[in-house]
């Protein structure tokens, strides 16, 4: 890739060890280095137990590395935050909220900047307040405020429309199918408007047909917004179809085995799978992952 964007997230020699009583400690991640750049769609594949989810949790701030450090724009990641939205495999929708309220929850705590206005004592009208920036220039002053309820509703409506669930906005999650629930979760992830979107095997629990449909939906929205995505999967076809860059991880201990730039033009669709180049990538990745399965003993039974 020629025009590489600036680095958003940097994983620097991250090691994660889970202590086990009366036994050998599990090394989930053993010195992982990774850079996630702006507008990238990264897919991580690897055999089960290679620490994919641990890596996502560390970026998401849900877990802390034992050694090394994960940073976002150079700041260390200490906990979860609205700059890194996560879409979980188990949907994680709030069952007591309707679809609309679920999507609105994403904008409940975040703030945005609006022009700072003050009442002019002479005219009695609201006027923009100005301030000087570090270069000594006069710029409009801004203040951080939460979204109003109307704004949150408008945002929710936009993303519910995007995933084509407008007719279900007032339904509860129990009334939706698995695919629809995941679409709501995606809408909620987008409504957060985070810098990076982390997706933890979001389509893993869905049937093949629904999965293809949602892959296409995700491609459409990504092609529009080019939001930086970090997508975990164990499905080789899925990772080649979606990713601009694929990271293959190896298991026990979890390490980055290979990084492959997927040089297939967007927009892509299920038809992209017929492209001979797609087949090449797919076969190559299959080969690497399958060999790891055998050598890791997942198939050979120790």
């Amino acid at each position, binding site marked *: 890739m020629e025009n590489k964007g600036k680095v958003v997230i940097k994983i620097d020699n991250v090691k994660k060890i889970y202590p086990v009583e009366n036994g050998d400690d599990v090394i989930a991640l053993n010195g992982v280095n990774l850079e996630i750049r702006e507008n990238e769609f990264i897919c991580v594949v690897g055999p089960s137990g290679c620490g994919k989810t641990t890596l996502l949790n560390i970026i998401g701030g*849900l877990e802390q590395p034992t050694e090394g450090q994960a940073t976002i724009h150079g700041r260390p990641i200490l906990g979860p935050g609205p700059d890194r939205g996560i879409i979980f495999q188990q949907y994680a929708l709030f069952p007591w909220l309707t679809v609309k309220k679920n999507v609105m929850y994403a904008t409940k*705590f975040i703030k945005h900047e609006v022009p700072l206005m003050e009442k002019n004592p002479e005219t009695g009208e609201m006027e923009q307040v100005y301030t000087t920036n570090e270069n000594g220039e006069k710029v409009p002053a801004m203040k951080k405020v939460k979204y109003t309820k109307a704004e949150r509703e408008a945002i929710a409506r936009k993303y519910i429309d995007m995933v084509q669930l407008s007719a279900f906005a007032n339904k509860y999650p129990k009334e939706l199918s698995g695919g629809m629930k995941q679409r709501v979760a995606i809408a909620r992830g987008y409504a957060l408007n985070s810098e990076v979107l982390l997706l933890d095997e979001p389509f893993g629990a869905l049937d093949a047909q629904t999965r293809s449909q949602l892959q296409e939906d995700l491609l459409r929205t990504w092609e529009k917004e080019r939001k930086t995505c970090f997508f975990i999967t164990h499905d080789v076809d899925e990772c080649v179809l979606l990713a601009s860059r694929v990271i293959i991880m190896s298991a026990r201990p979890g390490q980055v085995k290979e990084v492959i730039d997927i040089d297939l033009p967007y927009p892509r669709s299920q038809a992209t799978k017929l492209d001979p180049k797609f087949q090449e990538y797919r076969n190559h990745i299959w080969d690497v992952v399958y060999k790891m399965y055998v050598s890791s003993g997942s198939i050979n039974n120790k």
Partner: protein
Amino acid sequence: MKDKVSFKDKMKAFKEKITPKFVKDYYQKKEDEIAAVDLINLSKPVNDVATSGPKKMKDFSLWPGWKSALVGVAGVIFVIIIWWIYAAVCEAAGKTSFLSSPIAVCEAFYNQAIASSNLWTHLWYSLQRIIVGYLIALVAAIPVGFLMAWYKPVRAFLDPFIQFLRCVPPIAYVPVVVALFGTNESSKYFIIFLAVFLTMAVTIYQGVKNVDLTLVKAAYTFGARDRNLFMGVVVPSAFPFILTAMRLGVGAAMTTLVASELTGTAYGLGAFINSQGGQLAMDNCIMGILVLGIFGIVFDKGLLAFEKRVTRWK
């Protein structure tokens, strides 16, 4: 690391040493039996599904509600008839104090509830006790249930008391409560409170324990703080359990009412049942029991309807 392994080996050797010979023989015999099975020449399972499939259980999933109601009513009528016949047999044998007939019980209800207001006075006293004991228990059980689930030390501290008190029927500590509180209303409140509180605290604790951690994680990623998490995720998640706890609490209050009114009082449904029983006035006694039970059913159905309304999302 090496120390651990050698300790394990030692334990293994010790186990080997203390295992009696007949146990070892038994395991050896089983091993030999399994090894002796010839899988290759084992005959195939007989396929006779077409002729004799297992008989399915009757499926009642599409049964309409009115049929269930009809069966319920028929059951009640059946029991009343049996009761009637048995009461007639008792009467013929000249043992009227043994079991009163349904007619006698209806007469007793007329005398106590319509001709006089005796029953309502008793009911009013009981209702007061139930409401006061129940509400104090509810107010106490919600924070205790949450704290027990949230903070392990709280649970560790309270667990022995809760487990202990759960094993003791409220009627057993009546004398102690009388000695502590006297025979005034507070002793009744306390007994009902204790029974309701235990039931509710345990149920609410279970509910908070069951909160889906993925939801908590999701809320964190949207920028929620701990205090948002409590009102926004934990309370709604545990809400169905709180409602269940409230219903179980009503049951506990009703069943301990009679015990609470053994602490010296002339009024209250429990006291009424007891005193009438003591005077061998079986008609009044049975009537009191029926009123108590029906009262409980009405309470429970009311709460159930409320629960269905507020947890439509479940």
